[in-house]
């Protein structure tokens, strides 16, 4: 009962909102302002300023939301100009002429447009524009003087580098786009704006470089973006989850980043970026497994160091995935695989531990996850303390109490460290999830189970696609040309081509010795 009533209620509200949007603008200014007030339910932050212009006979008004506009601009470039206006008007034609004159000459705002429906007005006001009403005209001027408080550009928090630009995206889409523009001055950088969110009306920009990107990818991304129909998209994660290829996959099928340099280099490789207003995280598609294990620093540093970093990261990913599972299978199934001395010392250290290796490992992995979560939630200084307290004190105490063996502690600590080497947070989450799968398999069938789960993950990977691009490429389907920038990072002069798997229109990204 309750459910159905709720459903009906929802439906009614929806129709009401939609209906009210189609109202035309009247000529009578009083009526218009009343309508606006009615629609928004006369909120406190809705500012309407009525005044007269010319020789004191012509009624006019502006309306805006306090806090969304730049007040200085409003004062200097709009109000002052309007109040100093001196135009003679007698007839109705004069009013229209005056409206045009105001539109063309008097308002010194660079972005201005005419609106004819209440819908335009409310959209304009609610996204930070100011609306100008003139009595006797059934249209309004919508002036963009967006302002208000925004965050300054800071250093990226989630993707820190030793060498590389220190800028990070912010919540304002305008700033973010300008950051990309500053990196790519090519005239064919395309930014297609649309709005998402039935109610939030959030701005979304699809960015790509024409002439590089494969048009099929742009088409496919746009097609999927058009299907988005939800109330609100406060974060790019909403978009990601709506348009991704497989919702059951543990792997991220799009990359998210807050670094403008990552976005611009991806665009130049032939990918597309999805920028959403209100979040510093920009989505990059399509993405492959190899891509999310790359960090921009691999390219900023010289190639030897870059290669070392890559290899380390692959080892890190391997350890983060397999280490606890391998430990469990070695300790509970294949003791013969351990070197004799190690086997004896593990046996000695496990003497007196009450749990089987699997339970012991689970305990420690869960503890580690808890610590990690607690460290994220707490303010930074306390968060660090939690890490130290948890890592050292709990670990030490657990060993002393004989609940876990010291070797297990080493294994888990190593796993945790290895997981932090993945450059993309979303991938490190997938690794953490899959790790549990491997641990279960190891507890039941030892290394045989581990390899079967590994095979299963591979089956999943070769069937997964990110916007039509096979996720496991260039491993499979094998692209030998792309292999030199995968686990290894070849010297700069060898990386002359854009990734083959993106099937870009312009294949070469650099030319050797040609000028």
């Amino acid at each position, binding site marked *: 009962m309750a459910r159905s009533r709720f459903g009906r209620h929802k439906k009614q509200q929806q129709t009401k909102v939609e209906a009210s949007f189609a109202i035309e603008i009247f000529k009578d200014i009083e009526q218009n302002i009343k309508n606006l007030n009615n629609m928004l339910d006369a909120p406190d932050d809705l500012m309407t300023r009525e005044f007269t212009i010319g020789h004191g006979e012509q009624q006019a008004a502006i309306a805006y939301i306090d806090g969304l506009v730049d007040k200085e601009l409003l004062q200097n470039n709009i109000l002052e100009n309007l109040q100093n206006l001196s135009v003679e008007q007698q007839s109705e034609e004069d009013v229209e002429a005056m409206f045009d004159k105001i539109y063309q000459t008097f308002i010194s705002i660079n972005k201005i447009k005419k609106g004819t429906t209440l819908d335009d007005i409310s959209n304009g006001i609610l996204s930070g524009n100011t609306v100008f009403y003139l009595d006797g005209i059934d249209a309004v001027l919508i002036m963009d003087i967006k302002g208000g408080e925004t965050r300054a550009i800071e250093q990226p928090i989630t993707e820190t580098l030793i060498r590389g630009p220190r800028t990070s995206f912010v919540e304002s889409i305008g700033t973010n786009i300008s950051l990309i523009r500053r990196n790519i001055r090519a005239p064919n950088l395309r930014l297609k704006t649309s709005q998402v969110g039935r109610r939030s009306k959030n701005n979304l920009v699809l960015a790509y470089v024409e002439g590089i990107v494969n048009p099929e990818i742009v088409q496919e991304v746009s097609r999927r973006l058009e299907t988005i129909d939800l109330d609100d998209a406060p974060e790019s994660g909403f978009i990601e989850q709506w348009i991704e290829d497989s919702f059951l996959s543990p792997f991220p099928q799009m990359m998210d980043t807050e670094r403008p340099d990552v976005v611009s280099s991806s665009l130049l490789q032939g990918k597309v970026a999805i920028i959403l207003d209100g979040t510093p995280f920009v989505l990059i598609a399509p993405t492959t497994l190899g891509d999310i294990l790359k960090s921009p620093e691999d390219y900023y540093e010289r190639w030897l160091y870059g290669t070392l970093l890559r290899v380390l990261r692959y080892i890190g990913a391997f350890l983060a995935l397999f280490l606890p599972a391998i430990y469990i299978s070695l300790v509970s199934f294949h003791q013969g695989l351990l070197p*004799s001395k190690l086997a004896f010392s593990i*046996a000695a250290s496990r003497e007196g531990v009450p749990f089987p290796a699997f339970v012991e490992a689970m305990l420690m992995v869960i503890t580690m996850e808890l610590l990690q979560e607690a460290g994220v939630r707490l303010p930074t200084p306390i968060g660090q303390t939690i890490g130290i307290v948890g890592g050292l004190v709990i670990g030490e105490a657990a060993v002393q109490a004989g609940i876990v063996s010291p070797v297990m502690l080493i294994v888990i600590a190593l796993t945790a460290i290895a997981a932090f080497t993945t450059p993309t947070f979303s991938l490190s989450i997938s690794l953490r999830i899959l790790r549990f799968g491997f641990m279960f398999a190891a507890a039941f069938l030892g290394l045989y189970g581990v390899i079967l789960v590994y095979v299963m993950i591979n089956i999943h990977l070769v069937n997964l696609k990110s916007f039509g691009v096979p996720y496991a490429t260039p491993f499979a389907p094998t692209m030998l040309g792309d292999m030199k920038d995968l686990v290894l990072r070849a010297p700069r002069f060898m990386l002359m081509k854009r990734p083959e798997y993106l099937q870009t229109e312009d294949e070469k990204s650099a030319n050797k010795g040609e000028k």
Partner: protein
Amino acid sequence: MNKKRYLLLLYCLLITMLTGCWDNVPIEDRGFVIGSAIDLKDGKVDGNYDLTLTNQFVVPPGLNSPMNGGSGGKAFMNLSGSGDSVFAIDQEMASLTSKMPFFEHLKLLVVSDELLETPHLFADVLDVFVRDKEMRRGVKVVAAKGEAKDILGIQPENEQLPAVYINNLLEVSMKKTNLFKPMHVGDIHQMLLTNSSFIIPYVIAAKNKVDYKGGAIFHGYEDKLVGFLDEKEMTALNLVNGDTHGGTITFTYDGDLITFKINNAKSDVKLDTKDPESINITVDIGVEGGIAEVFGNKNLNNSQTLSEIEKEISKQIETMTGQTIARTQKEMNADIFAFDQKLNERHYHTWQKIKDNWDHGENLFAKSNIRVNAKAHVRTAGASEKVEGNRKE
């Protein structure tokens, strides 16, 4: 379609989980056997030999690890059992230790000379060490004088586990001197398959160490121990086989005792099979080394003295190898120099004809003429010419 696929994945996971874990044995419940010793009790019981198997179990907490500072207990435990099947005794032992014997870390197998002397018994006993999947082919085998289990009972001072002590001893010797050439189960298996004769390191237990007594010769065809080589003869054997980088030759030159240290030896075997009834075998041995010790005060640093010394060394080698070969031909009739293998490799057809009369039947091995030519090179005479000035004559 897609949905079905993921349901399938779910089944996979569920089944894997529901199957349970039959083979999950915690590491602390394993009884690691690190060394085994097999002795023969007197007489036969019910037509089968009565064997005594001693297993050395590791007691992990007793091992001195830096972490727990050592609990002071013994690091190993020797258990013995008797019966006629090695595997059956192993299984029986499980009831004695509360832990399942686990052989994947087995390093050493000791067999008594008595057992080796019994025809066919060694091959029978070895079967389980080749057949069982827990066993490795790299397990080292030594022969013991007297009771084999005494070897596992020694108390070495630098190692906690006797089996590991002997294992390391053999390994170091293999890398450094090659005196004690370790024999692995896999090697022995290969030898037994081709009925070849071979040498097993022969040791005797002392209180806190084992003494190396040379090698025990196992005759491939007769399938039993037929004799022993002492240390000097082992050096000779290694020289003939050309796989040594250690060992010394002591001789007198001009009334003074000189010790020559072998650094490297190469040998080249030439086989002449024109007359299968009496095969001519020529072994050329090239030895490189240095003078390690000189009694008396000769200056060796002149080419004439050195070449004379080299001649002396060559002569020494020829005599000692000659004696050894003669002894194996006459006394044991066991081809431990792998001439049979070389015949098979290089004179396949002749070998096919004579292989049943090599070290048995017509005893062609004993009848063959074996000549040794040695050539020694002294590469260095040491850092000092002499220790003291001229001596009073």
